């Protein structure tokens, strides 16, 4: 991180080599176009450079920190660009084989994500996907589906308790 903080070329290249594909995938799956995914990737690494001094390895993995930056930037964009059609969400357990290399920490996180999502019912999974990956509020989901807001809230709460429990004791939550 010291190298990134200094804007060292090798440090930036090394960070991109480890996490570039991960961040690009986040942008592509959430925003739907290669152009948007490329912009998001550049924004994430620029933000990481600006905030490098504030990364605290005792509070979480570097990969999670970068993905949180990416998710925040992507959701901001989703909410700014209302009315723009978004791609069908494709999750890692829905594709037969994921080509390309990822570092071990990413694979561990990916396993944790799959474990978390598989602990959910189909309805909970769809609900979590719409709020977390689409940036929809509970009220928007309730209005779209024509169901009581209280029901959406209860289901989201239940789902997140399961997500947390799925990885308890594995050093991820």
């Amino acid at each position, binding site marked *: 991180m010291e190298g990134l903080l200094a804007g060292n070329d090798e440090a930036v290249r090394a960070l991109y080599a480890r996490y570039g*594909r991960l961040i690009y995938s986040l942008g592509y799956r959430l925003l739907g176009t290669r152009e948007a995914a490329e912009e998001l990737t550049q924004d994430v690494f620029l933000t990481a450079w600006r*905030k490098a001094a504030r990364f605290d390895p005792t509070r979480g993995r570097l990969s999670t920190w970068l993905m*949180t930056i990416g998710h925040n930037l992507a959701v901001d964009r989703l909410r700014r660009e209302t009315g723009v059609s978004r791609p069908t*969400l494709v999750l890692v357990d829905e594709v037969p084989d994921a080509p390309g290399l990822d570092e071990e920490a990413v694979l561990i996180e990916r396993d944790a994500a799959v474990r978390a999502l598989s602990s959910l019912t189909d309805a909970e999974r769809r609900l*979590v996907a719409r709020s*977390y990956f689409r940036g929809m509020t509970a009220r928007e989901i309730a209005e779209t589906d024509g169901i009581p807001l209280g029901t959406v809230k209860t289901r989201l709460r239940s789902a997140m308790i399961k997500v947390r429990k799925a990885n308890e004791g594995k050093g991820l939550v």
Partner: protein
Amino acid sequence: MNCATVREGLAEHALGALLARDAATVDRHLAWCAACRKEAGELARASATLAFALAPEEPPADLGDRVLEVVQDAVARRDRRPQSSPRRSRLIAIASLAALLAVLGAGWGAVMAGRAARSDRVARLEQIRSESAVERFRDLLNSAEFGNPENEAFLGTLEPTTPGGGSGSALVLVSPSIVDLALVLVDGMPPQMRAVLPLAVRIRSDDGVLMVGRITKDEFDDSGAGIVMQEFADLDGFDTVIVRDVNGDVVMTGSLETRAALATPSP
């Protein structure tokens, strides 16, 4: 809002599924409640894991080079800035604060003039409240604790998301020995934007979002200026200001990037 009520909404808070005003209420609670903040942090880390569930996609071969260029450009811009001595940094910071206070004074004065015609009593109460906020801020600047060399100020400007959508300034004071402060001034809002008031002003870090306050119709003067200020337990890491309208749309954003130590350097 008590802890039980807040905890019922923490899952939605972690997923970003709360309405803006509800998220703000939770943020205010989290700012002072360590137990709920711990719970919120655990849920936030759990939700962050979900991002890894997205199917991988191969980026273009030259994206790494473009990422490097973007960072190199930012590094070069930083390095081109004149290097300030600690004393000069302090003077710049104090001058910026003074300028901001002057703007605040003018802004509040105009607001007060408009209100006087409506209700002397309400205007007087608001004036006392506003003046009290400025006084507290000035007291803080003049306090002995403010000389702590670990105090820092972060300044930034707010840019509209659409051309002609006004502008703004933001100031965050981070101190290990006294309360932290966030102060946001929005001005030059065009008349048509009154229809989308109140504006919700938030400040964000990687770990979450805090509500600074709402700027209502009553708090806007004729020139389209309004101010919010809030004290927090800890604003370290909060570096982005987001202003949303009544519909939840982002109308203004800004980064708090200008950083300056405020203490007088040792001889």
